[in-house]
């Protein structure tokens, strides 16, 4: 087998999606527990400890890895679930935990020194001193970089920090510094940072008015669509706002990130792993996106150009972007 080109890290919101990801060629799968300890705490999603153990078994039998995201910030007076999640992940044989909170990192470092720790994108470490700080105090082995850096900036970080980097290759684009964004709780009262659900579906509503559809989060209108117009998931940062008398996607357009077109550049930047976003998405999404990236990485590893592939059906708003990787995004 040729040396690995880039590690392919794939989402699993359910045990079925974990198997789909492994079968489609994921090197590594990440998942979370069925509670507020992970940043995709949506109804019906995620793993109980038994399912996690079975999932890890399925992956390990096939030589793949499983990471457990415990990447929200515990509420004061209620750190138990987060500490238990770290303990459960260790007991289930997870290959690493993905953490963000200083207290949870501290706990995992002291209680499970042998368990590999990755720094979640929720910790929003976008610069060398932060990464150095987390490595120094918590021995983090890998950092998941925020989706706001250019390829040149990623390369500089790899060079400066010497820590493995995992970058987003496919999925939604988050323009805000993650883990420190209170827009959703401002509109709903539920905090993505501690409850793990940005724009919780319980607060999302679609209202038809005069032949148009309004998307609302809490009592706030985020967008207005004409019939058939592409829509984004109604998070506050994908809403349409009026400034200076003009309505626009002030923060981010309804587009999805797709790095398939410039994988060699990410490889050259020294990136270790590619992350596919979307634990809230379906098995079908997982199979299709993972399969497409697997084929591309295998071709590149053989020195061949990746096969042409279209994934626009899977992206937000049906449109793709290179996000911050290319100049001009800011």
């Amino acid at each position: 087998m040729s040396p690995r080109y880039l590690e392919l890290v794939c989402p699993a919101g359910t045990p079925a999606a974990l198997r789909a990801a492994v079968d489609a060629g994921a090197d590594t799968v990440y998942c979370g527990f069925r509670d507020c300890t992970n940043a995709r705490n949506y109804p019906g999603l995620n793993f109980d400890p038994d399912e996690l153990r079975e999932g890890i078994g399925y992956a390990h039998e096939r030589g793949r890895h499983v990471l457990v995201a415990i990447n929200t910030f515990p509420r004061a007076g209620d750190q138990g679930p987060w500490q238990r999640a770290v303990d459960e992940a260790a007991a289930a044989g997870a290959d690493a935990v993905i953490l963000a909170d200083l207290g949870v990192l501290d706990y995992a470092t002291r209680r499970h020194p042998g368990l590999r720790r990755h720094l979640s994108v929720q910790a929003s470490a976008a610069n060398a001193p932060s990464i150095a700080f987390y490595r120094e105090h918590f021995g983090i082995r890998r950092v998941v970089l925020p989706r706001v850096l250019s390829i040149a900036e990623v390369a500089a970080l790899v060079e400066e920090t010497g820590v493995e980097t995992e970058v987003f290759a496919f999925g939604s684009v988050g323009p805000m510094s993650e883990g420190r964004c209170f827009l959703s709780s401002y509109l709903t009262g539920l905090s993505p940072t501690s409850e793990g659900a940005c724009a919780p579906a319980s607060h999302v509503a679609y209202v038809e008015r005069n032949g148009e559809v309004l998307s609302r989060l809490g009592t706030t209108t985020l967008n207005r669509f004409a019939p058939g117009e592409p829509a984004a998931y109604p998070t506050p940062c994908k809403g349409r706002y009026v400034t200076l008398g003009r309505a626009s996607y002030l923060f981010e357009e309804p587009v999805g990130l797709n790095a398939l077109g410039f994988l060699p550049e990410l490889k050259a930047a020294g990136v270790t792993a590619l992350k596919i976003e979307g634990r809230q998405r379906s098995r079908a999404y997982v199979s299709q996106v993972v399969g497409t990236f697997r084929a591309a990485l295998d071709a590149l590893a053989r020195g061949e150009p990746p096969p042409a592939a279209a994934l626009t059906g899977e992206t937000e708003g049906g449109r793709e972007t290179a996000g911050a990787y290319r100049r001009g995004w800011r």
Partner: protein
Amino acid sequence: MSARPPVRLTLGPLLYHWPAQRRRDFYLRVADEAPVDVVYVGEVVCSKRESVFAPWRDSVIERLQAAGKEVVLSTLALVTTAREVEAIEEELARGLLIEANDVACLKVLAGRPHVVGPYINVFNEGARDFVLARGALRIVLPVEMPARSIGTVAAGGAAGFEVQVFGRQPLSIAMRCYHARAHNRTKDHCQLVCGLDPDGMTASTVDGADVLTINGTQTLTHGHGVLLGEAAALVEAGVTHLRLSPQDLDMVAVARLYREMLDGRRDLPSAIEALRALTGPVPFVNGFVHGREGLAWVPPA
């Protein structure tokens, strides 16, 4: 407990981009007239703004110190270069207390006295104990924290705990500049267009509700966070410092009325009425501290 020292009023860092002259005049008036104990200076939002005020900064700090204020230098909330962290080391050498607003700053501050700012997530006892063990003297708690969590965190440790009780509440920070975007400019060629809006730029929904305030790379609430009715309970729960965040209005008057109310020289209804007179049509919000959506206003009981 009668041993508790009186609560300190602080003036948070100016988040908006004001012309240098105006910024200087503001701080000189604060030095002379505002009944605040602590003044935070420094640029939190955008490194491109820093050089504008740099020539006046040191003299302002001296005047504030001469007036008996504790001066704290706030860092950027989103550090992007190692140089920005090195600059912190230089400030440390000059003996300034630093408010760290990005974990990057803790890299150089760990082991030395410092303030942990509201842009670093300290939501629980574990995170609190970690930063206190590394030299934090005081923690400014995130605006999203409900009163019960504030009480749990502030109950432990000999440190100070600070909560913002006046001014638009910061909601997010980004690499992207939304002021530039709204003006169809790139961040690299923004010409500091954020300077046009000394009180930020209002963003409304497509059906006409004012909901957010844009301040360069930062997004804030549209309404002023007003925790007048909650201040006494916060102090009772262990909060030692109350922060007033500068807005484009008479901040000296705001500081006076908070001080008067905290000292028992003014009752709550009168304080709210006086504050309404100063803030004009901008609504009040206090949902976060009540564990509700941040844009809610829970009137004092």
